[in-house]
C-alpha cells in the first residue's frame, strides 16, 4: 500500500529492486494527520490509480494467480543511452536538458576534447573506479562511476581542470547532493587547505554568493554528478523534496577564510594537517542569515554567542548547527573568551535550551529519554543538543560587517582532495 503521491517512486523503486510487477495498491494522499474515520473512508473508496474499489483490489493482489512476467528470473541492465550525442550546439543543449542531464541552466557541452583536458587535472586513470552513488542509500541500488564519467560532469558544470581533484573528492564521498527525502535537504562543502588560494576561491566578500568561478562550478558539478552518475534528481522518482531548495543549484560551497580566522581551521579539527587539502561535508535543512539575533546590540562588545543561541531556537535537533562566522565575529568571540571553537561549542550546547514540551512537539527533535528523562516535566528546560560536537564552526566572509549565518546541518565526513590530485 502506497499513497498516491509516491506512485512513480514506488514503481521505480520496485523495479530497481528486481520486482518490476510488484502489486501495489494506492490510497489518496496523505495518511499523515488523518482521523481513523477518514482512513476508513479511504479503504471504502477507490484506488486512485485504477479507479476501482480499493479493498477488492488489495484482495485481488493477494489472490490473483501470477502472470508469466511476475514469475520471471534472470537479470536486466538498465540502459543509460548511447555513449555520444551528435548535433549542433543548440540541439545538444536541448538534448541534455530534455533528457534530465542538466540543472536546466545551459551547460558546457562535454566534447571529447574538453573532457580530455579535464582529465589532465588529475593523475588518476580515466577508467579508475571513483565510487558509488545513489539518490537515497538503502532505497535505490548504487551506480558506480569512474574518473572519466566524473570529468564529463565537471566539464558540463563549467569547471576547469585545476578544480577537478576537488570535484573527484566530492564524487568519491558517495554523498549525493540531491539526497531524496520529502524534506528538501541541502549539502554543504567546506574547503580547507592551500588549494583555496591555488584555485583563487572566494572566501572573502560574498563568499557564499555567485561571485567566483571555482566556488560556483565546483558546487554545480556536485549537483550535476548527483543527477547523472546515479539517475538522481528526478522529481517523483528519485527526488521527493516537496518544495525543493534553491541551494541545490550550486550547493553551499564554503572555503574557510583560514588567514583571517583566530581559530584552527575545520579540517585540522577533524584530524588533518593544516597543509592538507580537504573537503568536509555537511547535510541538513539549510542556512539562514542571523544578524538580527538579540545580543548584537550589547556594548561595548556584541555578545555574538547569544545571537547564535537565539537563532538556533527553531532548529530541529535531528541535525546539528553549522555556524559560518565572518572573521569579525570570530575575532570578537575570542575577545569574549572563546579562545577555541571547542569553547564556543561547549557554551552553546549548555545554553541552547528548550522545554521538554517544545522538544516533544517538534517532529524532528527528541526530548531526553530513559535515565536522562528522570525527574523532568514538560516545563523542564534542557539543552536542545546533548553533545557539543553538534556545533561546528567555519570562518568565512569579507569583514564588511560582524555577521554570521547559521545552518541546521550536521557534519558528515571529510575527504582528502590531495588523494585525487
Amino acid at each position, binding site marked *: 500500500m502506497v499513497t498516491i503521491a509516491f506512485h512513480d517512486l514506488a514503481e521505480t523503486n520496485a523495479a530497481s529492486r528486481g520486482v518490476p510487477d510488484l502489486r501495489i495498491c494506492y490510497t489518496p494522499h496523505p495518511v499523515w494527520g488523518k482521523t481513523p474515520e477518514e*482512513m476508513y473512508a479511504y479503504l471504502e473508496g477507490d484506488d486512485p490509480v485504477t479507479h476501482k474499489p480499493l479493498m477488492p483490489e488489495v484482495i485481488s493482489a493477494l489472490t490473483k494467480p501470477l502472470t508469466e512476467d511476475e514469475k520471471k528470473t*534472470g537479470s536486466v541492465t538498465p540502459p*543509460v543511452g548511447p555513449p555520444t550525442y551528435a548535433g549542433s550546439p543548440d540541439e545538444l543543449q536541448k538534448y541534455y536538458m530534455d533528457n534530465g542531464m542538466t540543472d536546466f541552466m545551459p551547460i558546457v557541452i562535454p566534447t571529447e576534447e574538453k573532457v580530455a583536458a579535464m582529465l589532465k587535472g588529475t593523475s588518476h586513470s580515466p577508467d579508475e573506479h571513483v565510487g558509488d552513488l545513489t539518490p537515497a542509500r538503502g532505497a535505490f541500488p548504487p551506480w558506480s562511476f569512474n574518473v572519466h564519467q566524473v570529468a564529463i560532469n565537471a566539464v558540463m558544470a563549467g569547471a576547469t581542470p585545476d578544480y577537478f581533484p576537488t570535484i573527484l573528492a566530492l564524487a568519491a564521498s558517495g554523498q549525493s547532493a540531491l539526497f531524496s527525502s520529502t524534506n528538501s535537504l541541502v549539502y554543504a562543502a567546506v574547503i580547507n587547505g592551500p588549494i583555496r588560494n591555488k584555485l583563487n576561491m572566494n572566501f572573502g566578500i560574498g563568499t557564499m554568493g555567485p561571485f567566483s568561478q571555482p566556488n560556483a562550478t565546483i558546487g554545480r558539478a556536485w549537483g550535476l554528478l548527483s543527477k*547523472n552518475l546515479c539517475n538522481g534528481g528526478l522529481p517523483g522518482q528519485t527526488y521527493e523534496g516537496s518544495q525543493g531548495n534553491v541551494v541545490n543549484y550550486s550547493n553551499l560551497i564554503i572555503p574557510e577564510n583560514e588567514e583571517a580566522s583566530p581559530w584552527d581551521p575545520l579540517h585540522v579539527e577533524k584530524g588533518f594537517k593544516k597543509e592538507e587539502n580537504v573537503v568536509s561535508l555537511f547535510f541538513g535543512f539549510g542556512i539562514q542569515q542571523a544578524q538580527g539575533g538579540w545580543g548584537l546590540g550589547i556594548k561595548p562588545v556584541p555578545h555574538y554567542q547569544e545571537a547564535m543561541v537565539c537563532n538556533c531556537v527553531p532548529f530541529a535537533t535531528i541535525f546539528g548547527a553549522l555556524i559560518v562566522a565572518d572573521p569579525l565575529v570570530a575575532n570578537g568571540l575570542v575577545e569574549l573568551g572563546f579562545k577555541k571553537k571547542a569553547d564556543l561549542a561547549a557554551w552553546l550546547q549548555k545554553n541552547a535550551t528548550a522545554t521538554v514540551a517544545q522538544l516533544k512537539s517538534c517532529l524532528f527533535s527528541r526530548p531526553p529519554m530513559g535515565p536522562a528523562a528522570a525527574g523532568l516535566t514538560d516545563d523542564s528546560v534542557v539543552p536542545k543538543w546533548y553533545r557539543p560536537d553538534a556545533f561546528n564552526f567555519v570562518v568565512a566572509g569579507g569583514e564588511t560587517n560582524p555577521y554570521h549565518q547559521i545552518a541546521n546541518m550536521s557534519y558528515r565526513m571529510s575527504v582528502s582532495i590531495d588523494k585525487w590530485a
Partner: protein
Amino acid sequence: MKRRSMLSLLGAAPALLAGSKLDAAQKKSMHSKHSMGAGDKIVGLNPRGTPPAIQLIPMAPRLKTLDGKTVYLISDGFPGADVFLNEMKIWFAKNMPSVKTIYRLKAGGFAADDPKLNAEVKANGNAVIMAIGH
C-alpha cells in the same frame, strides 16, 4: 501494467528510456537531406554513471483465497501508517471475519530489512500487506 514493466525492467527514469529513442531520431536526422553539414555538428559525451545489473525476483505464489488465512499488516513506521492499518484490521473484521490480521511495526528505517519480522511472517503468516507512508 505495461508502463510499470517498462519502467522497472529498465529500472530507470522515462528520461533514460527516451535517450535511446532520441538517439535513433538523431541518427535519422543526420542522414536526412535537411541535416546540417558535418562542420556544424559537435559530439557530446554521455555523462551517466554505470547502473548495476538488476536481478529479477519472482513474486511469491498467490493464495487461492484469504478465507481462514493470516494476513500480516506491516507498517514501515512513517506517520499515519499505524492508524491506517488499524482501520484495515477493522475492515477485515467487518467484511471478511474469517481472515486473521496481525499488525506489526517493521524495525529500522524505511529501507532496512527486518529479518526477525520476516522469519515471524514466514512461520505464522500466509500473506503480507505492507503500508508505506506518508
